[in-house]
């Protein structure tokens, strides 16, 4: 993205500056040389355009295309609840890892400190990325996130004490545990 911005900025600046230079600074006796420079400039500009187009196509593969499909309100609520539990569960491990990391460094055990720092970074990145994707409405649009959501949903419904509406029916539980559907219907889900 930065490369693309740099490329666009350079091109825009060159398009602004070059005519100014050509009209005011460079004397008219040197137009023949300017013409050749013009050709070089436009050829370079064309090449830059092509490379930028190629880069944007390449970048489009990594930019979340999930923006095209928005989650429903129920899915968003489920994702926010998942994030809240993940956040609560992450507080204590993060604090303990920080303390142990400091202790390891103070005891000059730098390898252990590095491992703990890596785990801390991974945990923080996981939580922050989850938060970012939920806030942007992107969570639940790939297979990993979908499996996490389904695991969370089923795990939560096995716990008691939740308000009505979050309990999976006995029929559903029976279908998931025993009956693999024979008629090609989705496995274990009531339609």
């Amino acid at each position, binding site marked *: 993205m930065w490369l693309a911005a740099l490329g666009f900025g350079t091109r825009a600046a060159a398009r602004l500056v070059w005519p100014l230079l050509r009209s005011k600074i460079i004397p008219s006796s040197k137009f023949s040389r300017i013409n050749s420079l013009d050709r070089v400039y436009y050829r370079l500009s064309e090449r830059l355009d092509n490379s930028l187009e190629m880069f944007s196509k390449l970048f489009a*593969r990594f930019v*979340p*295309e*999930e923006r*095209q*499909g928005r*989650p429903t309100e129920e*899915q968003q609520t*489920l994702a926010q609840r998942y994030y809240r539990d*993940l956040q609560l*569960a*992450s507080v*204590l*491990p993060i604090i*303990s*890892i920080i303390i142990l990391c400091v202790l390891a460094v103070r005891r000059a*055990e730098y*390898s*252990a400190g590095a*491992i703990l720092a*890596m*785990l801390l970074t*991974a*945990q923080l*990145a*996981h*939580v922050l990325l989850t938060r970012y*994707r939920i806030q942007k409405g*992107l969570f*639940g*649009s*790939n*297979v*990993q*996130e*979908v*499996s*996490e*959501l*389904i*695991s969370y*949903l089923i795990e939560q*419904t096995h716990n*008691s004490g939740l308000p*009505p*509406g*979050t*309990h*999976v*029916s006995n029929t*559903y539980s029976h*279908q*998931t*545990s025993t009956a*693999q559907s024979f008629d090609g219907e*989705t*496995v*274990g*889900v*009531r339609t």
Partner: protein
Amino acid sequence: MNFDISGLWRIITGAVGTNYPMRLGIGIAFACLSQTVVRVLARINPDVVVWQTLNDLGTIWYLIIITPLMFLTVVFGKRGAPEGAVQQINTIRALIAEGNFSSAQRVMIWRSLVEKYLNALQPDLSSAPRLKPMFDEVSKDFTPDAGS
């Protein structure tokens, strides 16, 4: 190719146990605790070779060996999505790979799968309602200073 950088990132971070933060924290704490225990035992029994050998190991080895033990039940047990859901996800993945769907279609398919699971939820009418929270709410409504 069904490539998604956020999914890849989740695989990488999930491999070090970030999906189960409490297990990760307990594993790390248990590793450090076991090292302390070994140190104490080595101090108490200076003639026992095993304790002395274990005492010579650095903290990193305790972390590497003991922390993954907390995830054995996750890896080999029935944690995570149930088998039916995993089969379903794998089937959809294969269909997506075969069908050469666009990214927007893939997203819609995954979202519809979550929607199906959400639709499968039903109110638990078998359990009796908890009357005390409801009574507390009603009593708050009748309190004269409730709005202030």
